[in-house]
């Protein structure tokens, strides 16, 4: 995360915690998300 400047552009948005960032690249968790996202996309494909 870049240094947040009070009242600056990057001061207000939520930023991920270390745990969230770890989850984003955790192989185990992401394998599970890989299956879920694929199912979501297939569900979308089946709508048309």
């Amino acid at each position: 995360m870049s240094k947040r400047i009070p009242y600056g552009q990057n001061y207000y948005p939520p930023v991920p915690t270390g745990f969230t960032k770890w989850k984003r690249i955790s192989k185990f968790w992401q394998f599970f998300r890989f299956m879920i996202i694929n199912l979501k996309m297939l569900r979308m494909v089946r709508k048309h």
Partner: protein
Amino acid sequence: MQRLLILGAGISGHTAALHAWKKLKGTHEVMVVSPNKNWNWIPSNIWVGVGFMEPKQVTFDLEKVYYKEGIHYRQAKALEIYPEGNSEHKKPCVLIEYTSEGRRGQQEFVEYDYLINSTGPKLNFNATPGLGPEHHSYSVCTYGHADETWKALQILINEMRHGQKKRIVIGTGHGTCTCQGAAFEYLFNVEYILKKEGVRHMAELYWISNEAELGDFGMGGMHIKMGGYVTHSKIFTESLYAERGIKWITQAAVKEVRDKELTYEDLDGVMHELDFDFAMLLPPFSGVGLTAKNKAGADITSELFAANGFMKVDGDYTPKEYDNWSPEDWPKSYKHPKYDNVYAIGIAFAPPHSISKPMKSKSGTPIFPTPPRTGMPSGVMAREIAFNICDRMLGNPEKATRTASMAKMGAACIASAGAGVLDGTAVSMTVYPIVPDFETFEETGRDLNFTTGEIGLAGHWIKHLLHHGFIYKAKAKPFWRLIPE
């Protein structure tokens, strides 16, 4: 034997050709006219632009595939459509000009029974003075552009290694650009590669865009359910920019690009200067410049095409205020209202209006994204329209009732945010419907059960999988039809 003529062999044209050929089983002819020798999986061009892939990994020779499949192919560009025929040809026809070696510049009339215009966009760099690879900014719109951009980025990285600080500007190069998603992907891939090269601290990264807010992506953004809230994509997108230390300028129309400096106008009509060392700015799109003539030879281009050069189909093109827009405005059959054997799909059809709310600066400059037409909707409309045409050719017009309105269709989209097999990330999104429907989904315009988004390594794996899957499909290898659009 009738002929289906398809102009263009991008995602929509090529998909239509393969499906039509499979359904017609050789009973009628399918012919593709495309000025390009190679097919290009455009979504992966951003990876060519950061050196993660070579141009040959995102392209293949079209002729070989068409030869194998029995699809007729002309490497040529379409110039004029004669939907009523002309003095020499009783049947409707198209004037084409060859671009292949040996026949370059030769012209020929090609007759058709059914026509699909899937010519895609013209990259209109001329809309902004100084924009584009021939002038002062780079592009990733074609694999050739992306390759040049990567070469320039490598030089920049080398200079940063030698202690020079650089400012990199990525985004849209005009007030009415679309495809913000592609620029977004390039921005985050550049950020990733700078980190990998150990020079991230030497670069100041800027996003400049005609979006009203971050996360608009030309579709008015989207709301998703997460953490007990229904939250707009603006929040998640700003979060990603803040996390990666990227500054952003929105509501901006780039007016001029000069050597290492650009001018942009904001919604207040105020002009600003921004200097840079490297800029990748997307151009606005327009139609490819096809014209049309009637049987008598009179120009009827305005009957077939909207002012922006895209082909009119069965949308409602009556000018309306934003509050009066309806999902019903969007085309369903993609058939021209007068010439019912002429269709336009993918980027080639004229949208009835934008999806994002139109905005103008105080001095009257339009500053809002035009509608994106990404791979999935382009592929779906190509398949449905190809099937309709095949049913008509096969003498079953009663079956030709399939529709593919973007207001009734969803899309799945993966936006790469760093191409690393073990530490990359991508934003995985599903949106339904693409065009918000505030009559059916009063609160957000979209079905929150089908509109989702998250970022993670899984998204990168899926993008990689899609890259290989769609190239396999486009090569018409065994069981290609099992891979959905």
